[in-house]
C-alpha cells in the first residue's frame, strides 16, 4: 500500500499535512476503516489514522471509548483474547500486519508495548531486560547481551539506579523504577514502534515526570503511541493527539490545535471537562 496515496484520498488529513512540517516526516502506521468487535459489542468503529515516525501520538478520550483497544490492535495483542475480532486494514511501513503470512509474535517484537501497571517478571533486573533479546536471539554471546542490556537500561533512564544490583529481583524496585524497567525491557528488543497503555497511571507525580521525560527522549528513535487519561500529560508529551469517543475517532491533529482550537464540539466538551 502506498502511504502517500492514502493521505491524499483522505480529506480529513489534508489541511494539517499541508501546513506543517509533518509531511516531511515519514508515515509509520496507517490504519484504514478498522472495526473491532468483542463478541457482539462493536468496540471500535471505522477508525482511520496515520501515525508518524519519530513522533509521540497521544490517544485521549473518556473511559471505555476504545483507545486502549485500538492501541492493542496495533501489535495484535487482541489476538490473545478469544472473542475479539478485528476488521479493516492496519499497515506498518506499508506491510499489512493482519495479513495471514504475518507472524503476530514477530510483529510484537517490532511493536513493543508498555502496560498500565508495571509488570516486571519475577526475575532479576538483568534477566528482565535480557528476556526479549534472548528469545529473539539478538545476542551471540554473553558480552553482546551485556551490552544490549546496558544500552536498554540507559535508554530506559534507569541504568544509574540499578547498575550495581543487576541481579536483584526486578519486583523489588519502586513503582516508577519498575515502569522504567519495563520500558527498558521493551526497548531491548529494538522495536520500531512503542505502544504505551496509560504508562503513568500507577505512578506518583515524580515517577510520572521521569517517565514523561523518558518518553520525550524516546521520540528520537521510535514512533511512540501513548494512551492517557491525563490531558495535561497528552499536552506535555505528544505532538499529535487523537480523541476517541464511543468507539469513534472524533478528531485527530496537532496536539496544540486539539487543545486550543478543537474542530469537533465533542472534543471541546471533553477537553473542557463536560464529558468524560
Amino acid at each position, binding site marked *: 500500500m502506498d502511504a502517500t496515496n492514502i493521505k491524499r484520498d483522505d480529506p480529513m488529513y489534508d489541511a494539517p499535512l499541508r501546513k506543517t512540517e509533518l509531511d516531511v516526516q515519514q508515515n509509520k502506521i496507517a490504519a484504514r476503516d478498522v472495526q473491532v468487535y468483542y463478541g457482539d459489542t462493536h468496540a471500535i468503529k471505522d477508525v482511520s489514522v496515520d501515525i508518524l515516525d519519530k513522533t509521540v501520538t497521544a490517544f485521549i478520550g473518556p473511559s471505555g471509548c476504545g483507545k486502549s483497544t485500538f492501541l492493542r490492535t496495533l*501489535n495484535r*495483542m487482541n489476538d*490473545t483474547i*478469544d472473542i475479539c475480532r478485528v476488521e479493516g486494514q492496519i499497515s506498518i511501513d506499508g506491510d499489512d500486519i493482519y495479513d495471514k503470512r504475518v507472524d503476530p*509474535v*514477530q*510483529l*510484537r*517484537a*517490532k511493536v*513493543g*508495548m*508498555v*502496560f498500565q*501497571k508495571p*509488570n*516486571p*517478571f*519475577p*526475575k532479576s533486573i538483568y534477566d528482565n531486560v535480557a*528476556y*526479549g533479546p534472548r*528469545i*529473539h536471539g539478538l545476542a551471540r554471546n554473553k558480552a553482546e547481551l551485556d551490552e544490549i542490556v546496558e544500552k536498554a537500561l540507559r535508554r530506559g533512564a534507569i541504568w544509574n539506579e540499578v547498575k550495581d544490583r543487576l541481579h536483584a529481583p526486578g*519486583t523489588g524496585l519502586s513503582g516508577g523504577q519498575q515502569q522504567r524497567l*519495563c520500558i527498558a*525491557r*521493551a526497548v531491548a*528488543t529494538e522495536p520500531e514502534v512503542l505502544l504505551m497503555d496509560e504508562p503513568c497511571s500507577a505512578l506518583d507525580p515524580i515517577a510520572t515526570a521521569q517517565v514523561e521525560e523518558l518518553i520525550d527522549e524516546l521520540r528520537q528513535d521510535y514512533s511512540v503511541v501513548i494512551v492517557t487519561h491525563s490531558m495535561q500529560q497528552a499536552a506535555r508529551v505528544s505532538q499529535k493527539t487523537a480523541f476517541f469517543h464511543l468507539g469513534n475517532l472524533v478528531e485527530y491533529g496537532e496536539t496544540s490545535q486539539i487543545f486550543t482550537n478543537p474542530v469537533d464540539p465533542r472534543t471541546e466538551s471533553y477537553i473542557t471537562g463536560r464529558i468524560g
Partner: protein
Amino acid sequence: MPVTWLFLIVLAIALAGYFAGRARVASASGGDRPHSLPNYYGWNVALKALVPALLVLAVWLVAQPFVVSTTVSAQLGEGAVPEGSTIGLVMSDVRRVADGLDAAVEQGLMSASEASGLDAATSNVRDRLAEAGAAIGGSVSPEVLAAAQTWRAMTATGTLMMTAVVLALAIGGAAWGWLQTSAEFRARNSVEGAIRIILLGAACIAILTTLGIVLSLIGNTIQFFRIYPASEFFGSLTWSPSFGGGSQLGIWPLLWGTLYISFIALLVAVPIGLFAAVYLSEYAGPKMRAWAKPLLEVLAGIPTIVYGLFALLTVGPLLLSVFGRDGLGWMQAGTAVMTAGLVMGIMLIPFVSSLSDDIINAVPQSLRDGSYGLGATKSETIKQVILPAALPGIVGAVLLAASRAIGETMIVVLGAGAAARLSLNPFDAMTTVTAKIVSQLTGDADFASPEALVAFALGMTLFVMTLGLNVFALYIVRKYREQYD
C-alpha cells in the same frame, strides 16, 4: 429421648426469644430508629439463650458417664472382681444390667419400683432381663445388681439436674438478652462478637482434635519404647514381628518401602499432573476446560480402595505379563512396588493438577501480557515466565502430594504385597509403614505386646514425617504468595 426433647425445647426458647427481642425493640424505640436492625435484637436474645445452654448440655453429656462410672467402680471395690476377670469387664456387666433394667421398665415388663427393688437372691434377674432383650453373660451377682442400681439412680438424678440446669440457662439467657433490648443497646456489635466467638470455637475444636490425636499416639508410643529399645526400632534393618516374642521391629524396611512407592507415585503424578494443569490453564479453550477439568477431578473422588482393586486386578497382572516370567523375568508376582506406585501416581494426578492449575491461574495476567508484548510465543511465556513464577507454589503442591502418598494405605495393602524388605528392584513386593500399622493392629494380638504397640510408634513416625512435609509445603506456598501482594 429426653436429650432430644431438651434440645428441641432450648431451640424453641431461642426462637421465641428471637421474636420477643424483635418485638420489644420495635415497641421500645417508639419512633426513634434503634441502634441496630430489629433482626440483630432478635439474634442477640436467641444466641444468649442458645449458646450457653447447648454448651453446658454438650459438656454434661460427655462428662456424666465418666463421673458415674468412676463412682460406681469405686463402690464395687476390688472384692467384686472375680478371679480371672478385670474391673472393666465387671463394669460392662453393670452397664448392661442397668441398661436392661431401663429397657424392661420402658417396655412395661417391670414397674419402676419393682426394677429398683429387685433382689438378686430371690428373682432370676438374668431371665427377666432377657425378656427385655438385654443379654447378660452369667448370673447376676448381688454386688453387680447393687452397682447397677446405683448407676441407674445416679444417671437419673444427673439427667434431671442436667435438664434443670440447661433449661434455667436457656431461660436466663433469653431473659438477659430481652432485658438488654432497648433502642440504645448495640445489638449488632453484640451479635457480631458472639459470632466471632462461635467461629473461634470451631477453629479451636479443629486444633484441639489434632493435639488430641498426637497425645493419644504419644502415650502408646512411650509405652512401646519402654518395652522395646528405640535404638533397635530406628537402627535395625530387619522387620520380622513374631507374636511369640523375640521379634525384630526395625523401621527401615517399611520406611524404604514407603519412600520408594511414594517416589514412583510422584514420578508418575508430577509430570502428568503438571502438564495437564498447563494445558488446562493455558491452552484449553473454555469449552474444553468446562468438561475436562471436572472429568479430571472425578479421579480425585474415587475411593482409594477402588484404586487398590484396580492395582490388584488390572495393573498388577498387566505388569506381570510384561515383566514377569513370561516376559523379562524381573517380576515374581503382580503385587510389587511398581504396581502400587503407578496406581498411587494415577490417584495423585488430579491432586497435583488441580493445585497447580490454581497456582498457574494465580500468576497475574499482566505477566503474560508483558511476555506476549515482547514477542514471546505461548510456550516461551509458559516456560520462562509462568512456570518460574509459579514454581514455589508448584513445589508446595508436590510436597502436599508427597505427604498424601506417604500416608496412603489401601492401594499399598492391595498392590504392593506384604513383604518387608530392603531392595532396589521396583518389581519386588514391599510394604509400607501404613500397611504394617494395619496388619499389626488387626487380629487378636495382645494389645500390650511390643508387636501391637509398634503400630503407634510407626504412626507417630509417619505423623511427624507428613507434618514436617506439610509445614515445609505451606511455608513455601506462603512465601510465594507474598511475591505479588
